[in-house]
């Protein structure tokens, strides 16, 4: 009988099985074997068997490694140390097989052979190594042109959707931006000096395929200022069913019901076979473009909306990013953007409390104050609605003469 009857249940079924995969690799790797044993124990006890992480790292770096120790080193020595190495992924998660094979070889030599492709932040997450391997891993990586990602109170590894590399919706060059910012801020990435973590995610358009608005302290989301490009001949083809919305099995588009009536601003009309868009009232939601990509295209005057402050619930409740700059051009070298972030970091550094994300600080000090302090003008695009409570801190008043 198997040692691991519980997790063996997860070998069954049509979805790719991580247990099967670990088992295959365990044939050549002791750490994998003990990981399976430890995991079986968790499945039995309904409890994690990892201890609170210790601080481990590589020389000169304050982040990039997550220390991890099991609570049962005597039982399963193979995973008594089982640290994670976060390798900074190439922008857009594109790989040559030679690059990937190099990583596999490295992890065969220095680790458990297990990875997450990718971690939620975007890194290549190399699961399971021991402290003694860390320096070698780092040296090897850097020799081959790779570097570590972030962890702790630093700028975290930026990530992005594939943008202009394979998407006609991209209003900004997400991968170029991601690569540039990552390099510009290597020090902020590798040497934690902030009140808390700071994540940047870049999406090419409001579809936000990298979920930046939900999970980055700074969301850079592509948009456009001019008009939706429209190809009337293609509209007619959608109307006739010659073209379909391919992303649904049942993709025949009813232009009135599926497009016009679903436009959130009501700025479209379809009469006598003519589709018209009142672009001044379009809020760039993407719906019509998503449905009829052959007929409608984003404008040509691309740039980004900058939003700040998304984070998970703890401590004061989850936040989504919210608008700071409605439109900014994002052309290299991105000076205007970088200066803005510089001012934001400076202000956060001085005013953020320990373990206070930027979004929490904005709520605490008031978005109006924050906006002013980082040198932006308060504008109604920043909010869904003005305050309804009358608790206003008036800063100017008259004095008796």
């Amino acid at each position, binding site marked *: 009988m198997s040692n691991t009857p519980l997790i063996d249940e997860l070998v069954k079924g049509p979805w790719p099985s991580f247990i099967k995969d670990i088992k295959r690799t365990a044939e050549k790797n002791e750490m994998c074997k003990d990981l399976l044993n430890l995991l079986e124990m968790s499945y039995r006890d309904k409890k994690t068997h990892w201890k609170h992480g210790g601080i481990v790292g590589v020389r000169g770096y304050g982040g990039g490694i997550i220390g991890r120790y099991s609570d049962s080193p005597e039982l399963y020595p193979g995973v008594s140390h089982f640290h994670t190495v976060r390798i900074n992924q190439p922008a857009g998660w594109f790989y040559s097989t030679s690059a990937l094979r190099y990583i596999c070889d490295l992890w065969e030599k220095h680790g458990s052979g297990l*990875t997450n492709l990718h971690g939620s932040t975007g890194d290549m997450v190399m699961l399971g190594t021991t402290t003694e391997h860390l320096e070698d891993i780092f040296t090897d990586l850097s020799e081959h042109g790779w570097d570590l990602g972030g962890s702790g109170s630093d700028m975290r590894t930026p990530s992005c959707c594939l943008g202009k590399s394979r998407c006609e919706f991209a209003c900004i060059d997400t991968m170029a931006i991601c690569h540039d910012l990552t390099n510009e801020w290597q020090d902020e990435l590798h040497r934690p000096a902030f009140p808390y973590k700071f994540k940047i995610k870049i999406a090419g358009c409001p579809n936000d395929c990298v979920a930046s608005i939900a999970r980055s302290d700074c969301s850079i989301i592509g948009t456009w200022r001019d008009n939706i490009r429209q190809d009337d001949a293609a509209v007619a083809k959608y109307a006739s069913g010659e073209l379909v919305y391919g992303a649904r099995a049942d993709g025949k588009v009813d232009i009135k019901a599926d497009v016009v009536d679903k436009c959130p601003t009501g700025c479209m009309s379809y009469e006598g076979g003519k589709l018209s868009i009142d672009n001044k009232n379009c809020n760039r939601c993407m719906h019509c473009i998503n449905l009829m990509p052959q007929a409608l295209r984003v404008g040509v005057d691309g740039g980004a909306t900058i939003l700040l402050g998304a984070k998970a619930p703890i401590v004061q409740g989850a936040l989504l990013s919210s608008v700071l700059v409605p439109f900014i051009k994002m052309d290299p070298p991105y000076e205007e953007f970088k200066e803005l972030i510089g001012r934001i970091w400076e202000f956060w550094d001085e005013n953020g409390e320990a373990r206070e994300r930027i979004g929490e600080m904005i709520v605490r000090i008031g978005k109006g104050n924050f906006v002013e302090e980082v040198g932006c003008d308060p504008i109604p695009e920043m909010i869904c609605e003005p305050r309804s409570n009358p608790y206003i801190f008036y800063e100017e008043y008259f004095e008796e003469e």
Partner: protein
Amino acid sequence: MAAPKRKTDIGPPHYDQMLHPAIKANYGKWKSHQNLKPGVLMHEGESGAKVYTVRGASARLISITTIREMCDLADKYCDGFLRYTSRNNVEFMTDKEANVEPLIADLKAMGVPVGGTGSSISNIVHTQGWVHCHSSATDASGVVKVVMDELIDYFTSMSLPAHLRIAVACCLNMCGAVHCSDIAILGIHRTPPTIDHDKLGNMCEIPTTVASCPKAAIRPAMVEGKQSVEVIEDLCMYCGNCYTVCPAMPIANPLNDGISIWVGGKVSNSRTKPMFSKLAIPYLPNTPPRWPEVSDAVKNIVEVYARDAKKYERVGEWINRIGWPQFFEKTNLEFTKYHIDDFTLASSTYNSSTHIKF
């Protein structure tokens, strides 16, 4: 012996080296795309060039054995290039239409389902769980496996009213975009932390520990002559943030830890604004190895949604149209006091209207 070369701060490799030639050639010059069938996209450049993408499922927690197999396929069909998506699927791109079907056949042979595009259930974004995290209230990869085993037909087809995105997080830290998912599966603790008074004073900074509690449930205290803290259990809602900050306050409790289910979040700005997920099921027991209560619950919600929603309605948009009372009625889920918010924005969730359906 010379010390090995050690460069720092060089950043990641440039993506340029990682791009298929056809991707490079059309970079920034795409015109449109089509979704040819589940898991297969065709992008068309301004020049008329075509690139085919085949998307395969991945467990995300994958070993070098699997990665090398993926590389083999990329070498065979895609000139040695591949990528992963923001939801951890693997994508193979080629400009040769003829390669598409053989590639799909090889993937299937390898046990990799092809799909996840368009109005499907794509891969489940998830976290570490018992595989690697000290904080986890449940496993992540195992839950993903059993749920996707159940829902695989929705991955390999595009039959839903709209995209449906599921995420799993193993504790309230919610690594991943769990809080804005069509369906979110969240590991939860349900009992207050225990306190190791012997260790606390040495291991933890008391002011930081006190400040970590969203409910101000932690107070400095002298216990048996030791500097420590006490937890006002009536105020604690088991978030585990104190444990994150202070290892001497473990919160895991196998009898009571479990899973909650959340619905109706979204991230895209398409039609409606991004939305948080809302509580659907406050507690399901932790039942490894196959968590049948969880996979049944998720499947039920998906099926009701698939039947009831209109075209192009994400889960949250569907619920907003029919209203939460009908959501609970149609899914046959129990509504409890736990569903009623009592945190800082609670009053904004009360129904301050007479808009009620009878």
